[in-house]
């Protein structure tokens, strides 16, 4: 059974169709990179996985649960999937440690000590333990994003979603975040990453999905994708990106 499975997902904003018949899957332990030009629907697709965006047609199954099903307990489902956002979205009025503790205590029902211990372990892992008592506004973008990854991991997720985790970062901070992600991939975490970082994709991705105008145009293994993409649109996109 795949960890995440999309079956003919369609989504409209009013009369505008943002997702067209998207079908794909992410197996357990697999790292899937989703790329494509801006406005191609890749961010929307990944947000459908934990129902941050509703969709009108089709089905998404996460670990055996149907996301669109009215009876699915969404907070519970979401707590099992870690998510990292483009703009970090740490809670600015809480310290780094409190950011990690909050959902552990309020959603998972962990005790304060247990949560803090877990948080500290994860902060250490992303190299941010020294910053635990600071507020997000006192950290650099790269540091904030590492904290955000730790916040997602603190929930012991079965999969992690990354929505353009490095595109709001200054160039010199991108690598510190990618390093954490690479390490995570090597540990066998199931990951779905919307990103333009093709270096990251080459290094750890198992599969690459290319989207354009709401459609999944290419869904291939890493080697196939970087070897000879079948669609012209993907070739054009790759040639533009790889020039840089």
């Amino acid at each position, binding site marked *: 059974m795949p960890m995440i499975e999309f079956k003919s997902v369609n989504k409209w904003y009013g009369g505008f169709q943002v997702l067209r018949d998207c079908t794909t899957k992410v197996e357990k332990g697999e790292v899937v990179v989703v790329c494509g030009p801006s406005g191609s629907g890749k961010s929307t697709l990944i*947000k459908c996985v*934990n129902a*941050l965006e509703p969709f009108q047609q089709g089905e998404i199954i996460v670990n055996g649960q149907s996301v669109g099903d009215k009876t699915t307990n*969404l*907070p*519970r*489902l*979401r*707590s*099992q*999937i*870690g*998510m990292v*956002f*483009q*703009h970090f*979205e*740490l*809670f*600015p*009025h809480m310290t780094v440690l409190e950011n990690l503790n*909050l*959902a552990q205590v*309020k*959603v*998972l029902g962990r005790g304060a000590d247990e949560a803090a211990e877990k948080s500290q372990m994860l902060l250490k892992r992303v190299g941010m333990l020294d910053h635990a008592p*600071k*507020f*997000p*506004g*006192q*950290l650099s973008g790269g540091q904030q994003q590492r904290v955000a990854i730790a*916040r*997602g991991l603190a*929930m012991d997720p079965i999969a992690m*979603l990354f929505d353009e985790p490095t595109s709001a970062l200054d160039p010199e901070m991108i690598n510190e975040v990618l390093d954490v992600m690479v390490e995570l991939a090597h540990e066998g975490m199931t990951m779905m990453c919307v990103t333009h970082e093709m270096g990251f994709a080459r290094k750890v991705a198992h599969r690459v999905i290319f989207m354009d105008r709401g459609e999944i145009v290419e869904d291939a293994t890493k080697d196939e994708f970087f070897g000879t993409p079948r669609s012209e649109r993907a070739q054009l996109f790759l040639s533009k990106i790889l020039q840089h």
Partner: protein
Amino acid sequence: MNYNWNWGVFFQETPEGGTLYWEMLVSGLGWTLAVSVVAWLIAMIVGAVIGTLRTLDSKAPALFGHAWVELFRNIPLLVQMFLWYFVIPEFVPPLKRWMVNTDPVYAQFLAAVLCLGLFTSARIAEQVRAGIQSLPRGQRLAGSALGLTTWQTYRYVLLPMAFRIIIPPLTSETMNLIKNSSIALTIGLAELTFRARELGEYTFSFFEAFTAATMVYVIISMSANRVMAWVERRVAVPGLIAAGGGGH
């Protein structure tokens, strides 16, 4: 201008006997503060709830919140005061019975705090709504993504930041509330302005009486400013310049 100054008037005895005029003003100030504090609590709690309702995705609560705001915003406060004191009790017989039998000052106090509290709640609701809507949409998504329920997302993520941002407008709403409490004199509540006028009528020292009341209001409004500035500093988030700095 011909005017006979008489600043000693505050130390004369009132016609009721036993008390001095300055004590009369202080008792008025006491009612002004009592009404303001209780009405403020009502306004903040109801305002937070209504403001939150207006930002929910579901239609019905948002509509209710909108109706609430429009209702209280479009009727003069004086008329609302009359409605609470003279009209609403007619439709609630137990309330009417209580009002007739109790010391009138309690009935006036109740009507005044309900009137001012709910009127101000509509204005605070608008600020709360603006505060929540000024937060990045990603904050709400991040809360949901962690598995927080809608209520938890508001309680731990959105409202704490929204309230920090809207401290400056809340400060001016607080001052408006204190000033508006003077309208309670129209239903007979002996608050500060009521007492100042009374002092003027008894002694013909209008100038002295109004000057004293004016000074007290200026001092209250300066103190309220100080308190809110202190609160703003206390809850300021390190590393965030924008927090609380929204007002110009």
